[in-house]
């Protein structure tokens, strides 16, 4: 949910100067402690989660060490586990999705923030928010029943015909694969980019635009050369947020990526992602090493999304503060 991440200027605790005892008598200390317990439990749960993932992946860490990330054999029978194809698949599908989603999302955000009248903008934003609420399994169903056949019959043959000289678009058209997964992911992350970018663009102070226009810039030039650069950090933030979401996405990807651990230059090739292999193999991994390798993949995914989310938050907060700060001045 991209709606609630910005901090409202703090209302701040209204600290009284009464003594501890009187506060205790009035129940304030008790209320404080009770609410503190709830707040602390959030921290506790998060720590426990990290601990469980760490604890649960001891075996592969000891056995494979860093090779876990460098080798590409995933063989449950001979107990060789290398995560490279999954990491590759995760990154490639995320990259494809961003290539599609970023221009589309930013374009739409510019339209909503700069051009559309407030009523229209709010209505469209409402639809975009609804789009963000569509569960991923539904994207998966639409993916296998609609996108995959379309890709197999029309899109991939057409791409092969026109751009087949590139290694990216070679090989048989299976329908499933990196490209299809990337496209489905793109559709899923666009709403995130739009919502956040729109907010950030709206926070760019009016005078920036007016200054550019009064200097003779066209409307597009004022938008593209002044407003967008002003909001750049926040827009990047929205992209990182979308990236984090794309990396961790499970169901839709599992249903359309083809589930084959290969590293291939061709986007038509079926592949595999970290989240998908966990979903497929976690309940059926018989050996401890296999199970723990999957948990280690979970840990990798956690760290990846953690870093990206942190980065995104920083950027978004940075711009909105810059924007609103100048706006108020």
């Amino acid at each position, binding site marked *: 949910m991209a709606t609630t991440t910005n901090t409202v200027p703090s209302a701040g605790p209204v600290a009284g100067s009464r003594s501890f005892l009187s506060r205790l008598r009035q129940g304030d200390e008790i209320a404080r402690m009770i609410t503190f317990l709830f707040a602390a439990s959030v921290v506790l749960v998060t720590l426990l989660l990290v601990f469980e993932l760490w604890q649960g992946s001891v075996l592969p860490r000891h056995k494979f060490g860093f090779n876990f990330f460098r080798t590409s054999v995933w063989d*449950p*029978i001979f107990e060789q586990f290398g995560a490279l194809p999954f990491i590759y698949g995760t990154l490639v599908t995320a990259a494809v999705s961003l290539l599609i989603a970023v221009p589309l999302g930013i374009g739409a955000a510019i339209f909503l923030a700069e051009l559309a009248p407030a009523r229209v903008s709010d209505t469209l934003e409402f639809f975009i928010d609804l789009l963000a609420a569509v569960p991923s399994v539904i994207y998966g169903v639409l993916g296998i029943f609609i996108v995959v056949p379309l890709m197999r019959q029309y899109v991939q043959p057409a791409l092969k015909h026109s751009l087949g000289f590139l290694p990216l678009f070679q090989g048989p058209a*299976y*329908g499933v694969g990196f490209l299809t997964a990337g496209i489905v992911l793109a559709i899923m992350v666009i709403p995130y980019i739009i919502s956040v970018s729109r907010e950030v663009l709206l926070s760019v102070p009016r005078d920036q635009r007016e200054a550019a226009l009064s200097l003779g810039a066209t409307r597009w030039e004022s938008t593209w050369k002044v407003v967008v650069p002003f909001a750049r950090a926040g827009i990047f933030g929205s992209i990182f947020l979308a990236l984090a979401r794309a990396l961790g996405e499970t169901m839709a990807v599992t249903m359309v990526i083809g*589930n*084959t651990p290969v590293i291939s230059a061709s986007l038509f090739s079926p592949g595999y992602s970290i989240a998908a292999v966990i979903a497929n193999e976690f*309940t*059926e991994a*018989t050996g401890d090493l296999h*199970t723990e390798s999957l948990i280690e993949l979970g840990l990798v995914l956690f760290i990846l999304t953690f870093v990206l989310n942190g980065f995104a938050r920083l950027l978004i907060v940075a711009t909105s503060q810059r924007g609103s700060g100048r706006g108020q001045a």
Partner: protein
Amino acid sequence: MKRITGLLLVVLAVAGVLRADSALSITGAGATFPYPMYSKWFDEYHKKNANLEINYQSIGSGGGIKQVTEGTVDFGATDGPMNDEQLKAFQDKHGFRILHFPTVLGADVPSYNLPGVSAELNFTQEAISGIFLGKITKWNDPAIAAANKGVSLPANDIVVVHRSEGSGTTYIWTDYLSKVSQEWKTKVGKGASVNWPVGLGAKGNESLAGTIKNTPNSFGYVELIYAIQNSMPYGRVRNSSGAFIKADLVSVTAAAAGAAKDMPDDFRVSITDAPGKTAYPISSFTWLLVPANFSDATKREAIKGFVKWMLAEGQNYTEALSYAKLPKEVVAKELKALNDVQ
């Protein structure tokens, strides 16, 4: 709003409590290969015993073994028997054994999509293993053509398709390949999911079938009932006596005949590449995995009751779903073994 939420809460709580002890619920998980059979059986059995619900989730053979060993389900199911190591792991963990009970027989068939070829193809052991090892890459390779005289095979590349998730269908296929090809045995081995030398992975029967149907020149393996239900073409396979056999109830039953006579006490037997002139070579039993000890007596009796029913009346449902019945000797032996469940 609050009132609605409150009402919902009450209704749900009541529903939860009311249903809490109206029925005995037993959970099993595992093999997908016999899933159509099992879901039919458990449904029929529930109709006869309204107080017993046997919930079966087809999460894959590997999952069946793992979950029953972890103790998260009451029984498991698998298409490949547990190996000695897995049996020991179970014994170490629980202090008692786990027993295998064969339920039905099924078969894997080689399916293909060859535009312009309507003849039913013959496959030798060398052809199948060669294709899956990536050594035979063209449809008109002499290893395939020699067994199909009179059929004009295209010079196209073979697109190998296999299951991507752990699957009993895969176990049976790789068990067969390990028996007919030394190279496969040492390089790849047998298992529910293996490290494939070549090919394209498809998740689940559906996408495997879809891939074969939509990819010209493809070759893959599916469970017999599945090929029949989806009218996919499938070929004959040469058995150990040198005859090309098509998978059907008769040829699968014939494959079990040899094993029926000298069935080991723990029922862990592979009948791929079985002897017998009419035996279909890629056949297999599929097993329920039942712990030898139950702390809960009602559960124990319920499971034993079901296995008894399955071995008698239940066997009448098999042929409608293209599974072969268990040989009589095996049924008798299983009834005896059922006494070991305590």
